[in-house]
């Protein structure tokens, strides 16, 4: 996998979640990511891809092998034109431990990656960007 290689694939139906996992596994593995880090990344991808399908009404996953300050990483963006998230604070509250939150698995995914950015507003769709360094 060479630097700045990139691509995009649709995340519209359930099977696309599986495809997203498999593609991410391949990209990260080709880059030489360690198994534990790779597993965390693939798991985060599964959570976010599912959100895109189930709550976002379907969208896309953009991926890119990036280089920043001498280190290589895998960056993914999940974007949809869905309803957006009204209460970001609530969405980023742990779902299953406190019983609150929105159960979107966003906090979980956030813990599994090095960088996490959430861009959303009601009626504006949702965009989540994650990065895991090699």
């Amino acid at each position: 996998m060479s630097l700045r290689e990139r691509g995009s694939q649709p995340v519209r139906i359930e099977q696309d979640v599986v495809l997203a996992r498999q593609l991410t596994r391949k990209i990260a593995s080709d880059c030489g990511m360690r198994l534990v880090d790779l597993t965390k990344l693939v798991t985060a991808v599964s959570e976010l891809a599912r959100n895109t399908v189930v709550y976002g009404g379907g969208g896309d996953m953009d991926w890119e092998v990036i280089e920043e300050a001498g280190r290589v990483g895998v960056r993914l963006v999940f974007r949809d034109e869905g309803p957006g998230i009204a209460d970001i604070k609530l969405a980023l509250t742990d779902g299953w431990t406190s019983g609150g939150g929105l159960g979107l698995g966003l906090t979980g995914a956030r813990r599994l990656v090095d960088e996490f950015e959430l861009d959303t507003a009601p009626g504006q769709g949702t965009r989540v960007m994650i990065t895991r360094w090699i």
Partner: protein
Amino acid sequence: MERIPILQMGEFLLVTIQVDMHDQLALRLQDDLTDRIEHTSARGVLIDISALDMVDSFIGRMIATISGLSRIMDAETVLVGMQPAVAITLVELGLTLPGVSTALNVDRGMHLLRKRVGHS
């Protein structure tokens, strides 16, 4: 329709998950298992995930649900073979599966089930 096979061994049910499951397949497994427990009056369920290189919150919750439902139906569930990277990730996710018994492999898992179900 794609289904994950459930094997019956006496009063125990054995499930080996070897495919990357999409959500519907996982839910189908949950339903199939609970049906089989009821129809066979199974006393134990062994779920082998040694081939799974990823368990996310959906699958994690499915496992916890199966464990809870089977207990209600008087069956014990044991989860075996979780890979280290998967275990580390689940802990990081905050999904610790309390109430789900675990064992290193099918052999130990069956031993644990027999012990729990009251055999020597």
